[in-house]
């Protein structure tokens, strides 16, 4: 017991954290990600890899159930944290570390949950085998068969992407039907959006409420948002180092640093995205949006082109951080934009390999929080 105590204390020096982000939890997520990076604690890729479940924001409804199911999948020793605002992050992570070092739980095999943890809710009766009674193993439906793109009959599995998934938009659930590792079709769902306040479009919404907001303040938020999306995209693509650089710049902007403080980071991200011939070649043609859809959405090209556009926008926004003019002019419609992106997702990921689908979603990065945003008042 003495030995396992010593091992536990050694291990608690670097716990792995799994983030479960609720809509409206963006500010908390940013604070947690920053705190984790500064402590050198890795972000877990799945519940099996996690010691901490860090719930950012306040999950409601179906999302709360999903978070509970994920929590049941974490191996012990484990600690669950609820972080509703950015100010809680430091203290909560400190106390989690102490708990991990001290906690001694009986070591037994983790019991599998009584109910399958995959999908959520019913409504998929077409997966029965026709005579009304589904074949089941341990409570799980068997994979059904369906023709694939080559005209063969192959097993077909339902795989929900989200809502608790790393580097994934908060509250988004993409219920996919996969054959092998190729998505045949997908449905979009949004969970836990009740009390969402859109963090990224906050300056515009405040301005439309008549509050005085400078253009520089809005530019700061936009630059941080683009860097956040870029960081997420790079993370999904497996470039953890590039992602960290983008996030360092993002966090400095959120904390109120000036343009000079993020210059070096922006240059480094630019070198990764623009300068790397390897990346250009690797991402070429990946996740291309068809022209007619691109016109409708206002974003087009392939994953690489979209990343470059984000980078351009981030750089332009950083250049106008000092703009003291009042934010005015034509404000856009964040809710409509988010809705259009979400509606387009099933079409974009159909027939695409899982990894490419992740890149497509990350390269569009729809913000579920904005769905509830009141369309900004257009003046002058």
């Amino acid at each position, binding site marked *: 017991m003495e030995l396992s105590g010593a091992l536990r204390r050694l*291990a608690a020096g670097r716990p792995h954290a799994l983030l479960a982000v609720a809509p409206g939890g963006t500010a908390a997520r940013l604070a947690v990600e920053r705190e984790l990076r500064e402590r050198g604690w890795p972000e877990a890729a799945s519940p099996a890899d996690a010691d901490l479940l860090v719930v950012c924001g306040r999950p409601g409804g179906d999302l709360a159930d999903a978070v509970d199911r994920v929590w049941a999948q974490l191996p012990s020793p484990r600690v669950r944290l609820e972080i509703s605002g950015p100010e809680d992050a430091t203290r909560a992570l400190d106390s989690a570390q102490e708990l991990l070092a001290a906690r001694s739980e009986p070591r037994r095999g983790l019991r599998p949950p009584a109910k399958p943890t995959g999908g959520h809710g019913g409504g998929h009766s077409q997966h029965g085998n026709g005579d009304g009674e589904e074949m089941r193993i341990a409570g799980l439906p068997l994979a059904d068969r369906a023709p694939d793109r080559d005209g063969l009959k192959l097993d077909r599995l339902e795989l929900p992407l989200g809502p608790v998934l790393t580097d994934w938009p908060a509250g988004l659930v993409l219920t996919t039907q996969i054959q*092998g590792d190729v998505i045949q079709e997908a449905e979009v769902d949004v969970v836990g959006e009740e009390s969402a306040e859109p963090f990224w479009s906050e300056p515009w919404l405040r301005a439309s409420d008549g509050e005085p907001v400078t253009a520089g303040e809005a530019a700061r938020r936009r630059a941080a948002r683009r860097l956040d999306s870029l960081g997420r995209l790079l993370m999904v693509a497996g470039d953890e180092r590039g992602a960290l650089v983008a996030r360092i710049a993002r966090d400095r902007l959120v904390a109120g640093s000036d343009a000079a403080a993020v210059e070096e980071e922006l240059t480094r991200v630019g070198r990764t995205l623009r300068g790397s011939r390897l990346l250009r070649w690797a991402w070429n043609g990946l996740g291309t949006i068809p022209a007619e859809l691109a016109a409708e959405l206002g974003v087009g090209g392939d994953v690489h082109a979209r990343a470059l556009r984000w980078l351009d926008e981030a750089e332009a926004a950083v250049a106008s951080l000092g703009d003291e003019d009042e934010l005015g002019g034509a404000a856009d419609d964040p809710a409509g934009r988010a809705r259009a992106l979400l509606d387009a997702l099933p079409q974009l990921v159909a027939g695409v390999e899982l990894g490419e689908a992740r890149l497509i979603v990350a390269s569009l990065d729809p913000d579920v929080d904005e769905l509830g945003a009141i369309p900004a008042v257009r003046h002058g």
Partner: protein
Amino acid sequence: MVESAPLWAALLVPPALAALALVAAAGDAALGARATGRPLTGALAIPLRETARLLVQQRRAVVAADRLLGAAGPALVFVAALLAALVVPVGGRAVLDLSYGIVWFNAAEVLVWAGLWLTGWGSNSPYGLAGGYRYIALGLAYELPHMFALITAALGAESLRVADVAAAQSGLWFVAWMPVAFAAFLLSALAISFVGPFGQAVGRDLAGGVLVEVSGPDRLLLLAGRYLLLAVTAAVGAVLFLGGDSGPFLPGFAWLLLKTVVLLALLVGARRLLPVLPLQRLEEVAWVLVIPLTILQALLVAIVVLAR
């Protein structure tokens, strides 16, 4: 000329390989710390912290998972690396001095395929399964050039005995006249160890892929097995292409260690240098470029051997 080492030498193989693997893991952690501007001193403890973490962590089970295969997979990766190390001659002596040592080494590497696939399959998760698919596709594309590279070295020495290949380089290291085979060997070593640009099987886009449901001691076996594999591949690379333990002044053992550490540093460094690349692109590179080049290299070496 070469004789089998006494049996007790087999007991030295795991700690020696583990020490190399630990150095590699610490080096990797240090590179990671440098990239994020964190102090290097803390980074060196990371492999130890991770080991402790996984030792005290609970094993997981998933509904209807194949527990036997799911647990056998990680163990197989670990054991395969140790088996591969048995044929490496140190100071002119290998624990297993087989006349087909190179085939043994390659067969042990192929066990890693099985190990990883079984782990992904055993998890009963679409992510794990998709990770397994990715590894099989990648393994096939890079196992072929790996085999051609091994065969080229064996051709040059006209023997499949590892120690004979080392001895055949007393005049000129093989890397000098079969550089393509050497480069292909290192590249495919990265692919077989699923690290760096070849990390799709355990990618974040698949929530960890093959590793999605693996926790505790199983995860430790698999992740440690990966470093053991890198270490043993570096050692074999040093023997087959860099003249093994030949070198002036220092004893043979020291030369082999030095060359192995240099190759290991190269492999670990390459891991950080490049991001994970889309699998379909890597397949292109293997089938269109690397495989034809390694066949050409083997042909060239064969002609030289016949002509001399």
